């Protein structure tokens, strides 16, 4: 296991990059997922159809495929995802603004894929809000948008938080795929480099990589368990 000590810098660097990837993708997924959820419950049928189609496609396709399309389809369409080179953001997330677009592609793929699940988590939260709430809001004259904004969504978030947490945990694990699609130096990719380039034995390296992911996912999972349990007690 000395590889963990000898190459600690590699693991820490990989962890940090994966962490950045996850933060950015999570933000993207929450924003896009909320929008899609709103589309799916909107009173305008075409919007509903688009929302449903979005969720059906992304929920039912492997993430590898989505990553493939992001990594090879976007460039084929002529995009290097330069819109993600947001000046302020790049000072923290330096990978966003470099010329090589793979980090941006990975963020896009992870965010779009995860958004479908975020949408469903939020929808389940919206369904958990008693219909009387929305009805009362309509009865005092709030429009659809105001109703969502001031009455339904603030309450939906609460019961969506546990499913959303599970979605984010799944996303963190899914981020391990980014290494296959050209993101250099993330946690699982640095594991692969340690083994292939430096000839480190595979098992200890991947134990190290697993620990890196568990450090992110297990505490989040425990937090969710606690929220869930507190909620269950409160519901009695």
């Amino acid at each position, binding site marked *: 296991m000395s590889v963990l000590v000898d190459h600690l810098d590699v693991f820490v660097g990989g962890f940090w990059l994966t962490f950045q990837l996850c933060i950015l993708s999570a933000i993207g997924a929450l924003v896009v997922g909320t929008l899609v959820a709103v589309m799916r419950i909107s*009173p305008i049928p075409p919007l509903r159809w688009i929302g449903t189609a979005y969720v059906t496609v992304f929920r039912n396709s492997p993430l590898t495929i989505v990553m493939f399309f992001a990594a090879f389809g976007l460039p084929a369409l002529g995009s290097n995802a330069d819109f993600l080179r947001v000046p302020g953001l790049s000072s923290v997330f330096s990978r966003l603004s470099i010329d090589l677009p793979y980090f941006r592609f990975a963020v896009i793929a992870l965010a779009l894929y995860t958004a479908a699940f975020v949408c469903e988590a939020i929808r389940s939260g919206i369904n958990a809000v008693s219909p009387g709430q929305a009805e*009362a809001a309509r009865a005092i004259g709030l429009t659809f948008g105001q109703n969502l904004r001031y*009455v339904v969504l603030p309450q939906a978030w609460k019961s969506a938080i546990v499913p959303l947490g599970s979605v984010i945990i799944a996303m963190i694990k899914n981020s391990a795929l980014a290494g296959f699609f050209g993101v250099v130096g993330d946690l699982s990719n640095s594991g692969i480099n340690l083994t292939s380039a430096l000839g480190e034995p595979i098992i200890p390296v991947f134990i190290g990589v697993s620990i890196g992911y568990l450090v992110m996912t297990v505490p989040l999972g425990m937090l969710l368990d606690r929220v869930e349990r507190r909620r269950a007690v409160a519901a009695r």
Partner: protein
Amino acid sequence: MTERSEAGEVSGTTDQPLIRLDGVNKWFGPLHVLQDVDLSVARGEVVVVIGPSGSGKSTLCRAINRLEPINSGTIIFDDQPLPAEGKALARLRSEVGMVFQSFNLFAHKTILENVTLGPIKVRKEKAASARERAMKLLERVGIANQADKYPAQLSGGQQQRAAIARALAMQPKAMLFDEPTSALDPEMVGEVLDVMTSLARDGMTMVVVTHEMGFARHAANRVIFMADGQLVEDAAPDEFFANPRSERAKDFLSKILTH
């Protein structure tokens, strides 16, 4: 009763009813829930709707502010046909207060926020003045001291009074009540009926679905008896209770009045 006629005069169109339904039909799938309903409610009038469960009372109530769209017929409110959707519908709804059986206070907002939300977001009132008016309304319904609590912290009767204040805060031209007391423990029914009676006395136009015969007798101008989606009877309360014309109303009253 003085203020009431006053209110009527102010609007200057006392002869035109505030609410008018003409040949209204509503189906839920195969179920014909409202059958050719004609009804008009004058400004300042208090109409109580009674009838057996499933007869369509709630649906009637909800049709009036278009929470439930109708299949045919026309509904006219304040001389305007009900708008189909969008901003115009939202505006119409803001002029018709509605009070639900299950209160439906916004669970994540304090009582005060519940009451000010509509005025601020719909009527675009200043927060300060909305709050001030809200406090007056809460005082009027007797729960000013609960303003900063959340709905779950209040008793059923307090919640329902807050819901009435929330509806009043929009300064509606009419109020709809759908069994406002039937989810309440018996000792709390009185406090809500008191508020409603005082509203009626102040000249508010009201349509009230209720099984509280006492309220119907003392506060209503007319009692309407519904059965199977039809308005079967429409009479002054004294007349109706003393002398129901239809068999169904007789039957219904005999069951209801035994306890």
